[in-house]
């Protein structure tokens, strides 16, 4: 009895000794558990599941799921021409959208920077398309492409008389138009904020000294807003690689597969045709890794430039 009491006492001593640490631990848990719980349920576990299933033949038709090793990955790389084509198309799309969107956004931001009274008005107008959901934008533009532009072409603008969504060669660019229309305003806001950090005397010098203002822009302004450029390129890159809603709403990947981007290819592999969930998961893992590598390289390279300046 006595010995028991004694051990209990020593225990409580060590407990007191660790109490501060324990309390810290407890509060750490209290603050982090809720976030972690939701994160684990809806992000982590599904992700682990997706990795696991990418090695199986899980599909909608058969209820038994078998482990198939690397064969899904091998198939994606060697025997799936559509996946490869959709990947190449997505890369092309990403390249165009990232460049055009950022150049245009920066240009508009610069123009707006020079306005005083109308600055806010323009900011508001250019950002407006961002309020319209992607899928709704796609529907709006289907109307513009199928009804408005053909009628507009009758006013001597024969260039506008295209099979905007029906011609496989044109449809790709129609998607890009919508993406740029909707995305540019967002980047513009970030660039405007960054430009406000550029000292006024530098900007004034650029206005007055017209001849060298472009030089000025390249050598003074650009380095000073490099941080914002890194962010905007990161955001557009990420968004463009995962593009789905706009394509889904405008062309559904068609005609044929002419505008099938990689996210749509994965979606269709999973939810149409043979409903091969396992295989679609494998392809989505490949997409994940590619996005990971590209963004890491991009941020690394551009961060390096920031330090230089």
């Amino acid at each position, binding site marked *: 009895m006595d010995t028991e009491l004694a051990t209990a006492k020593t225990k409580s001593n060590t407990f007191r000794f660790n109490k501060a640490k324990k309390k810290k631990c407890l509060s750490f848990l209290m603050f*982090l558990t809720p976030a972690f719980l939701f994160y684990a349920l*809806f992000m982590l576990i*599904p992700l682990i*599941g*997706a990795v696991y299933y990418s090695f199986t033949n899980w599909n909608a038709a058969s209820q038994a799921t078998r482990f198939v090793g690397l064969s899904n990955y091998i198939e994606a790389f060697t025997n799936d021409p559509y996946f490869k084509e959709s990947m190449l198309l997505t890369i092309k799309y990403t390249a165009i959208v990232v460049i055009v969107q950022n150049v245009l956004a920066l240009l508009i931001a610069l123009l707006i920077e020079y306005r005083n009274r109308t600055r806010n008005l323009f900011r508001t107008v250019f950002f407006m398309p961002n309020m*319209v959901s992607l899928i709704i934008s796609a529907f709006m533009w289907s109307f513009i492409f199928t*009804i408005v532009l053909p009628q507009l072409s009758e006013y001597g603008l024969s260039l506008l008389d295209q099979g905007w969504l029906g011609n496989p060669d044109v449809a790709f660019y129609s998607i890009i138009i919508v993406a740029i229309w909707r995305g540019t305003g967002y980047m513009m806001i970030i660039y405007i904020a960054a430009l406000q950090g550029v000292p006024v005397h530098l900007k004034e010098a650029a206005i007055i000294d*017209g001849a060298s203002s472009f030089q000025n822009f390249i050598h003074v302004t650009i380095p000073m807003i490099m941080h914002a450029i890194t962010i905007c390129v990161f955001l557009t890159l990420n968004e463009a690689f995962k593009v789905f809603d706009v394509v889904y709403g405008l062309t559904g990947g068609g005609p044929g597969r002419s505008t099938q981007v990689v996210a749509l290819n994965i979606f269709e592999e999973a939810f149409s045709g043979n409903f091969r969930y396992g295989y679609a998961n494998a392809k989505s893992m490949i997409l994940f890794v590619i*996005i990971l590598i590209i963004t890491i390289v991009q941020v690394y390279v551009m961060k390096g430039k920031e330090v230089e300046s």
Partner: protein
Amino acid sequence: MKKTRLSSIFNLVILIAFGALSFFPIYMVVINSFKSQDQIFNSVLQLPTTLHFTNYTEAFSQINIVQALWNSLTVTGIGIAGIVLFGSMAGYKLARTPGKLSQIIFLFFMSSMLIPFHSIMITLTRMANTIGIQGSTVGLGIIYIGLGVSMSIFLTAGFVKTIPKELEEAAKIDGANEMQTFIKVIFPLLSPILVTIGILNLLWIWNDFLLPLLMLTNVNDYTIILSVNTLFGEYNNDWPKILASLVITTIPLITAYVFLQKYILDGIAEGAVKG
């Protein structure tokens, strides 16, 4: 001086041109939503001669707009509340606890921001079904918490570092425990970044399409975006009704935008620069 004036006018002209291009689709959709099918096919560019409000009444009767709005509000409200609350708690704690462990946990949350939704959509659907929240707006809102909390942690953690520690220490001396300190002292100080987080998530959740498509089963639970998507399939080129429903869906956010635009635009700039 003259040169400046000239370039200023040139500058204005370019901006107006771009602005017109940017606004043109929205303008077209709005004016044509008041026309009849015939008018649309024959004179799409003109202003409507007579206002066909029937387009709107019919669209209203097709989608139960009040219900759909409520559903969108429920999903977005729950999602944002959870993301803001849980994200700021975790972000604060991680920023205030130095050491390897917090760093690892922080990176762990961050890495998920690069995961494409398509990578988890199939297993996420299954998870939602397993725990019995598939097909409910509340469940959908809860899922958004899990998907959006990382970004919230990231932004709060960055912001917390700019808050001096003295304030918390003072509160501690006054005898407040940690949760109380957080609620009374920290949370108010975080409000600028919390508004930013709220806005970024509002734009995302309200406008999201694919996740609700996978999760909601009953027409009565459809968010507003999903209802319009269904209409688009149903109406089959009945443009007046489609356009009217597009306008109806877009109005809530545009209205919010007109009133809150300063917060929204600043919030976005803030969110990006902090990122």
